[in-house]
């Protein structure tokens, strides 16, 4: 995923679209827009930064996980298997981005959604108390798109919910390994390419341009 931070207006649509898509536990927000103040009055401003899991190539959470619940798929998406997770929270300590969330048992806040027991296609909305959960790049959408011949990152049903909703079109999703993909072309055009916490050297798949 590529995020053009300069375009973000801080509206939190991504934050909420992710919440309703994934029914994340109570106060877990997988894709929040982070805000912080900079400067001194009158030359002060508020910076916005859309965030989510970085799906690192060398993911410290996977390395730290004692139960094998955290795994990196072949396509690079890092997944947490909540049924396998033993709740050690070692991954949370290891993640430099605070992208992993522990489910303390409180219910999701979004009313009106299906019960977790409803159809199989909502498996991603079923969260296990005492386990960790995280952003999956909406892997269920990517998989649905791949299975149904929809272009990933282009067709809205084959694109992460945060990307689909964004009114400022900050986010683009595609294949970073393909030099001709939408994401690669955007990086080439609008670069330089940046990542969060480069010092952590984790090889994030979430790339940025225009960081504040």
């Amino acid at each position, binding site marked *: 995923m590529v995020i053009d931070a300069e375009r973000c207006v*801080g509206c939190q649509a991504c934050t*909420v679209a992710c919440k309703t898509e994934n029914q994340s536990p109570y106060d877990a927000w997988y894709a929040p827009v982070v805000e912080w103040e900079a400067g001194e009055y009158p030359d*002060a*401003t508020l910076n916005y930064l859309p965030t989510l899991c970085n799906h690192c190539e060398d993911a410290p959470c996977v390395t730290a996980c004692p139960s094998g619940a955290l795994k990196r798929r072949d396509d690079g998406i890092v997944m947490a298997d909540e049924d396998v997770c033993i709740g050690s929270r070692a991954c949370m300590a290891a993640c430099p981005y605070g992208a992993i969330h522990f489910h303390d048992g409180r219910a999701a806040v979004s009313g009106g959604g299906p019960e977790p027991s409803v159809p199989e296609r909502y498996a991603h909305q079923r969260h296990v108390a005492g386990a960790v959960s995280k952003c999956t790049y909406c892997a269920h959408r990517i998989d649905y798109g791949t299975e149904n011949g929809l272009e990933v990152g282009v067709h809205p049903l084959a694109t992460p919910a945060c990307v689909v909703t964004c009114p400022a079109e900050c986010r683009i999703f595609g294949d970073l390994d393909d030099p001709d993909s939408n994401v690669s072309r955007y990086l080439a055009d609008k670069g330089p390419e940046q990542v969060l916490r480069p010092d952590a050297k984790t090889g994030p798949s979430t790339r940025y341009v225009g960081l504040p």
Partner: protein
Amino acid sequence: MEAVLGARSGTAYGEGWVRSACTICMNRCGILAHVNEDETVDKIVGDPDNPHNHGRTCAKGDAGFEGLSDPDRITVPLRRTNPERGIGIDPGWAPITWDEALDAIADKLRETIADDPEKILYTSFDIFHLRGALAASWVTGLGMPGYSTWSAAIFCGNNVHGIAYMNQNAFEGTPDPVYSRYILNFGAQFGSVVHYDTMHATRSLSERRSEVQMVSIDPVCSAAAAAADEWVPIRPGTDAALILGMVDQLVNELGIYDAEFLRNFTNAAYLVGDDGRYVREPGGPRPLVWDERNGAQPFDAGTAGAALTGTYEVNGVRARPGFQVLADHVRSYTPEYVESITTVPAATVRRLAREFGEAARIGETIEIDGTELPYRPATAIWYRGLSAHKHSMLNGLAVILLPTLVGGLDVPGGLLGDPWGLMGKVKDRTYTATASPEGLISQGFIGGGRVGGLYPPREVKAPRTTEMFELMPCAPYGTVFSLLNSEQPDLFGAPPFPSMMINFQSNMMKTSGPPEVVERFVKRIPFIVSISRRFEETTMMADIVLPDLHYLERLTPFVFQHLTSGDGRHSVYGAKPAVASSIEGPVPGEPYVDAMQIYLELARRSGRLPQVHEAFNNIAKMRGEYRLDPDGHYSYFEICDRWLKNTFGADKGLDWHLSDGLWTDDKTVEEKYPRPFFDARAQIYFEFMLKARADLEATVAELGIEWETDDYQTLPDWKPGPAYGRTAPHDLFVINMKVPNHALSHTHKNSILSTLSNRHNDLKSVWINPVTAAGRGISNGDRVEIVTAQGRRQTAAARVTQLVHPEVLATQGCGGGWTKGSAGDEVNFNALLNIDADHIDFVSGALDSAIAADVRKVGAGGSA
């Protein structure tokens, strides 16, 4: 039942998705709602086929399905059993049948209509937007003077709508999202997801962000200011001084103005005598202009180079073009004087004026669809920030000068009118503005009754209702005077008080004035009906409650029928039920899909159905076979079917609406940028104010009441508001701002959005500048109490931040409240307002929302 549900296929997303419209805020985006097998909705996305929001949604829209399965929903009609009404008093609700409820209301309607139909207070905010001609027909058919747009009318576009109609024949103006390159946000949040046309604007601006210079002039670094290139902090309520200082710089120092535009498309060349009135042709209405060769000529005599400057003698009197009068008028607004009022440095005043003037590229053109048009890519936008002030109308008349002086009205890059003049004219739309005998744009405000425009001023009459709208010839609404008359009944001789109120989708107890003030007003109304989905604060004051629907259960054919500004395509669409409500409706055997079913049934039971049908034929411009027989009886579905076919054609009735329902069309260049294509003129000199003032003074003298008329001026000034220049301890201004993840007050009960707000603590906090906080011994996170000069109080958590002017206490959203689901620990800014003559603009009906206040620490961080 299937027949009234929207089709769940045929959308860009395929099976399971229903195309509808979000009605959480006035943007009314096109959406697709995903419906599960068990008739729950679990996802809302933007409709990719809809050119209004191009497949996008905001945080509010994403969370919109919340509340569908709310266990606290009102599901049956209720009657109050406890005769005592008030905040915190249990109404003792008892269920009644629809028949009992409707008959009781119809009896009251008949009784009130026989006495005086103007004593029906019909309050709603969104019904006239969403239900258009049908709602208006109901109001007209019952003989009411109109609807009252409580509570928004106290804070909404008091100085926006009339001015937009005056200079743009439009409901409001917004910057051109595609071609504007320099945008002054005066206390508004254009470009953030908080404003009209917001999805179009946000996407267009983000696409060309590096080419657009955004400047936010605001006491707080709002969401839009944070995303802007520059935040210019300003003392609240002083924007008019800055604007007039910029006008002085533009016309007197820099000589930057669009002379050709001013001559041909405004009244700038109209000659004005020393009495302030136009110098007119002898015996006729036409104002004169000065022609170098032929002397004074009627404005429309074809004079090529009418003078904008100079002093002349005409018919024995001294006369100056309106532009010269304006230039002379603003000379006193020197940058240094402006700095002393606004705290904006004099150098910044000069720079902003120069930047704005240069960015307007006067003289340049651009080709759009093969037509060469003026290109004026500098503009300004304002809303409540400039409107909610004691001298609201003067603020509005000041700011409209900026785009007008540079020729930036309804041309590429300029301020674009939201063309509500096109409403309902899907097939045979023609964009034109009617000219007054003075040659000025004179199309009135769409509305009527208790809602109106600015020019020409309406006839002044003795007040017929407690809103006293008849004494406000230039205001869009008079709502706030209801509260003033309630508080001080002797002030204006106690004009007629409502006998009954029907309250629909508005919550005045929480959203207008201080709760105890509104409570006193509401308690005096003998009979109250509330149509509501939940037990809102105002619903709890009702005698009869009728259940309302969630927007995803509604059938409303014309939710969006005004047309996106500027480039892009027209779109007209409505809402349809994504899920069927299990709530029984007012008509036995008929699925409940919209509150209009209640209104039609009430009309029938009160004997006014023929009048409603006739009014509908007129207002909706129904033709031939689609017209309603006054003596006929039609279901809501049948009326929708006829209305749709009358609008779109015989093949696009209710079936089409349910299975598709999105109408789009290309725009002509005239529709995108209408200004060069019609003759009626905009104004920079507001001569009509003199007549309005004279009429008003004569009437109030006759009535023997005191009425403020000082602000009926031909040119705007900055004047101090009631909180300006106060001494300690109330030397701060408490103000309020919008947040992008909330709209109005109703989203504050949305569990997803309120959890998000809690995370940011945005609704429970007050922003205080570090210097101010230090001076009062306040640290970040402390519990503080805001105390106004009038003694009103709210507690909050201190957010000590660099993002706020040192004289300002900034609160956010429309929180607080006391019913189930409301968060009492949120700041209720409206509870700090003052309902008195000092805080009300008698011209526009605005209520000053910059309140003199102190802030004190009452507890350390983390304490209750």
